[in-house]
């Protein structure tokens, strides 16, 4: 009998781990400085939990709405997500995390499972699209969107705030 050996991609795991952290903190940071992102997430109730998993056996990154803003909670908490996005494989999440595919395109292509109320989930997807607009350069964004989401602050402000939030949350893993 042949021994089963599955190649384990540490690179893809590392990318997803890093990007989940950056993305989570970027959501927290940009929703404070961008009225569009704030507006998209305004309707979700206090305490609302959003989870994001890069692959089925991966850890879930949580965002929880506190005082009107979704805050990064890392991957250690034991929360029950109101909305949980689980990418079907690392090959589905990594292109999204690296800015080669938009979250909308991933949705259209059934690249993730979305557990939770579909009728109210679109605001989260749109907000993530706006956060991407802060994180990636314009030439990449043009390939991702029919119309690049408008950002309501300087890109540099969003990036600096994200780095700030990353430092503030450095203990949250």
């Amino acid at each position, binding site marked *: 009998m042949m021994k089963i050996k599955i190649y384990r991609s540490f690179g893809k795991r590392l990318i997803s781990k890093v990007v989940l952290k950056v993305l989570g903190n970027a959501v927290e940071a940009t929703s404070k400085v961008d009225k569009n992102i704030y507006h998209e997430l305004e309707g979700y109730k206090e305490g609302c939990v959003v989870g994001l998993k890069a692959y089925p056996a991966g850890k879930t990154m949580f965002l929880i709405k506190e005082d009107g803003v979704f805050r990064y909670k890392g991957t250690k908490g034991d929360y029950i997500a109101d909305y949980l996005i689980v990418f079907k494989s690392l090959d589905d999440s990594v292109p999204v995390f690296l800015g080669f595919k938009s979250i*909308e*395109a991933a*949705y*259209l*292509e*059934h*690249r*993730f*499972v*979305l*557990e*939770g*109320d*579909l*009728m*109210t*989930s*679109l*605001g989260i*997807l749109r907000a993530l699209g706006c956060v991407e607009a802060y994180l990636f350069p314009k030439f990449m964004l043009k390939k991702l969107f*029919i*119309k690049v989401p408008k950002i309501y602050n300087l890109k540099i402000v969003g990036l600096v705030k994200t780095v700030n939030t990353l430092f503030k949350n450095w203990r949250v893993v």
Partner: protein
Amino acid sequence: MRIPDYFEFHNSVKLLSGFKAISHIPFELKNLNSERPLILTDQTIKKLGLADKVLNAFDGSGIVPVAIFDDIPADAPLNKINEVAKFYRDNNCDSLIAVGGGSVIDSAKGVNILVSSDSDNLMDFVGLDKVSGKLRPFIAVPTTSGTGSEATLVAVITDTERHIKMEFISYNMLPDVAVLDPEMTESLPPHITAATGMDALVHAIEAYSGRQKNPISDVHASAAIKIIAENLIPVVKNGRDKKARLAMANASFMAGAAFSNSMVSLTHAIGHAVGAVSHVPHGVAMSILLPWCMKHNLKMAESSYAEVLTFLKKIEDVVALSEKERAQACINYIEDLLVELNKICKLPVKLGDAGVKKEDFDEIVARAINDGAVVPNPEFVDETIIKEILEKAF
């Protein structure tokens, strides 16, 4: 032809299409190792004698349905679904037959999720691709030609107590068998035939022109468009035309299979909201909004609309036109079709005539922009654009 970077296509439904197709239901149940089916239908279907037709199909089959729930309300309410699921379990039923329109078929999908799992809470399954595993045997017998529910992976169920709609999307919810029998649709009145037929046309056009179009869906959508172009007006004029009825049932099924995989877009996003806020029947909202949404999408969907025209008209009528002219002619064709349907059966052509009030616009816009159907739309959409479309269609 553009092949998407990635797409999925699933249609595992066995199709029985034709005259006396319902007589094969008992055979199909045996094929599915089932002998204790539970039938779901509604009062209108019962009054029209269509439920009896399905029951009579069991004559001589050796199978007797356990029971028939003939009071499934519109909008597939959760409390009814829980009641039916409890009955199914208590009486050891082993399969479901839905006889009706979209609400009855959606209700059966909801019941099937529950009876195929250990849970008695449908909320556990709300979402995209959340329903997993093989569900119980399920046969759908549509009594309208439009929703395509017999071929789709979607169910919308209403929680009347909490006033919310729950959406389920999963390939596992597809029926095992769809039965298209012209006898089941021939008593539909002309205006409902027209509205539901237009709904099927919108499914096909939106699937063919959306961002998630793919070659397999395109084949289904293009065939559906051809059939609708040839049969919609004749069947609205003469509902007893069984061949046209069967053709429309096939078109509805194929359009359903197409949009089940390629999704619908802006017309549906706005149409769902118009239905929820102003209570306009789905097919009516679809027909009014279609040309306006196509006009908005014209630039991005030009080549798709140009191709759609070749399915709607004879090739000699379009061969001399450029792609741009074909796309515009496609929209003109739809507008002419709506004017003709309005003449034949008073199908409304304006939102104002369908009961929408201008005061409803803000709520319609707020709902439409959050409808999942905006995502596959070929052209950019925001609140301002939706409002403009509503103004134009008013």
